[in-house]
């Protein structure tokens, strides 16, 4: 048993770390809400370095890194306080195209995703279909070489920045097994009939939207995989790469900032002990994360359903840290407002990307056999 990274992995971590120190613009660090320009600026810096899509095959611009290197890279980004690399193109649409897309689709979309020319968003949730995603109703009716799409998506992150959206739509409302009537469509956001309406959240920020589709005409060539096989595509994506859902690097950074900003508060034993318990949970989660990576490396298999525990605990830790920051800060001070906004904002983490309750359902069913 050896919990340490190999000398090569440590050298790689140092390389990433010093590159970030030299290339991550100060003004982009720790920024809560980023403009499209800011997100693209960071995307292009990474693309220029060749690091924007590490998990892709080398021929399309991937780095050929091992799973451990990819994990280290992600953690270092988080630890450095870098902006997120928008996942919708790089780590959602692209893997789907690579696995199910036609050559023409790959050639058309992948280079533009890599270069940041197309900003993507994801059209999954609907007003009546959240956790129960397979109940979705946005319909796409085949008409010659087109689909005509009508319906509504909700909670669509960055739809207001997006050039393209990938959507799950209902192409067959008659099938008994509703998962079998869903298709995966790519749509140009400039297509007539698409309307984006902002949804303001309680932290005052605008990152999610409602997207309305009113007789939107989509070329049939924009369907990925077979008609009515969209659920297979969605499921593939769920199991794709979930090694960084614990957000270890990001939480380590938040913990460090918390200790630095409120060092005097650490003499308050009640506060100190609460903080220590969160710190210990984070230490444990980092090792649990490494154990998943080690298992993946050893078996050559993608992680099992139990990897959901990284998302559950990781988001709980993220939230606990914002709560501790709120507790430590002077409630009357103006600079506390940023912490308060972050506290409000981070409540989303246990809800998005499959709520933590859904993650527990997944473990109960798939791992524990309940």
């Amino acid at each position, binding site marked *: 048993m050896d919990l340490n990274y190999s000398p090569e992995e440590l050298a790689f971590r140092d390389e990433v770390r010093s590159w970030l120190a030299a290339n991550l613009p100060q003004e982009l660090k720790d920024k809560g809400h980023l403009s499209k320009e800011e997100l693209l600026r960071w995307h292009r810096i990474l693309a220029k370095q060749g690091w924007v899509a590490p998990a892709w095959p080398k021929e399309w611009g991937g780095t050929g890194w091992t799973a451990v290197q990819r994990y280290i890279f992600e953690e270092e980004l988080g630890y450095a306080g870098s902006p997120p690399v928008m996942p919708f193109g790089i780590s959602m649409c692209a893997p789907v195209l690579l696995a199910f897309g036609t050559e023409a689709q790959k050639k058309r979309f992948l280079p533009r995703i890599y270069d940041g020319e197309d900003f993507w968003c994801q059209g999954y949730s609907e007003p009546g279909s959240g956790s129960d995603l397979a109940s979705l109703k946005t319909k796409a009716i085949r008409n010659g070489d087109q689909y005509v799409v009508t319906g509504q998506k909700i909670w669509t992150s960055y739809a207001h920045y997006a050039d393209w959206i990938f959507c799950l739509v209902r192409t067959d409302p008659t099938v008994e097994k509703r998962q079998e009537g869903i298709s995966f469509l790519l749509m140009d956001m400039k297509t007539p009939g698409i309307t984006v309406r902002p949804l303001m959240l309680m932290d005052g920020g605008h990152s999610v939207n409602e997207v309305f589709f009113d007789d939107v005409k989509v070329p049939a060539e924009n369907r990925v995989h077979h008609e009515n096989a969209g659920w297979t595509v969605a499921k593939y994506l769920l199991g794709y790469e979930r090694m960084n859902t614990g957000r270890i690097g990001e939480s380590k950074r938040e913990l460090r900032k918390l200790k630095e900003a409120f060092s005097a508060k650490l003499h308050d034993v009640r506060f100190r002990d609460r903080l220590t318990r969160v710190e210990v949970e984070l230490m*444990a989660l980092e090792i649990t994360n490494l154990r998943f990576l080690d298992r993946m490396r050893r078996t050559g298999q993608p992680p099992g359903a139990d990897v959901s525990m990284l998302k559950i605990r990781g988001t709980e830790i993220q939230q606990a840290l914002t709560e501790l920051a709120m507790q430590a800060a002077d409630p009357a001070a103006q600079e506390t407002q940023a912490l308060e906004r972050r506290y409000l904002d981070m409540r989303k983490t246990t809800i998005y990307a499959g709520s933590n309750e859904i993650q527990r359902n997944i473990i109960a069913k798939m791992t524990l056999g309940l």
Partner: protein
Amino acid sequence: MNFDYNEEQQLLADSVRRFLQKDYDFEARRKIVSSPEGWSERVWSTFADMGLIGLPLSPDYGGFGGGAVDLMSVMEAFGEALVVEPYLPTLLAALAIAKSGDAKQKQSILPLVAQGKMRLALATGPRGVMGAPMADKIVFSSGRKLRVLDRKDLQLKPHRTLDGLGAADIALETEITSPLLDEVLDFGAALSCAEAVGAMKFACDTTLEYLKTRRQFGVPIGAFQALQHRMVDMFISYEQAKSMACLACSKIDSHENAADRARAVSAAKIKIADAARHISQESVQLHGGMGMSEELKVSHTFRRLTALGRRFGDADQHLARFASL
């Protein structure tokens, strides 16, 4: 990075498990616990034959020079089977002698220990000395010296701990101090974490089995989401605890600076104490009335986990130590 046990560690773990499954099932253990001695000499000599007792001792004294990670899987197996023999007390006292004893103490005691012919207890204070009633010698540090006294020369007031282990209050004239023992006690704390992880595994496994077999309202109770989510949380607690046991044992073996080691051990103890409480309480609750029953092993695992959460310092003590480092 590699979380596997190596081949030797795996073989050892397998043979320990095989022995415990065959000769130390719940019934066999019950007989041992209810015997006047409260431990089994036959089991003890099997442990010695398997090389378990000499494992962490130097080959100079008939041992194998193993570390905490080598002992992890043994301790996990002991935790699953709820072993009551005074293994850890003997090991820790022997390690204290190996580290701080004089040549005569080492030569006269350690080979006998490795052969299973002598049991020891390590006193860090006069009260509740673990393993003392069945020990041949009591080891303690006084000033800068390690002292070894025959148990039969001492006045003992023996009792059983909550989880069925022998312990005793000892009347000693000399004052006990423990500056020599920090490292040994951290070793013990780390191993107790591994033991707790084994007990947690049993508690989780047996509770999951119960959820799948116990039927109410016409369905297995595991069909109810209220129970599913609680079971999942137990499972996550177990995995998190296991991660920390790995960390603590690895840090012990890496012989880095003492503060790093102590910090890792305290962090592990905090997590293990919290997880032991969570898992033990939930395992009883999800068993319903049956969980309270003396007849089910899970109630005895409850006792072991409750005791382990407090042994080598409880969560509060380790929270304080973690913060001081």
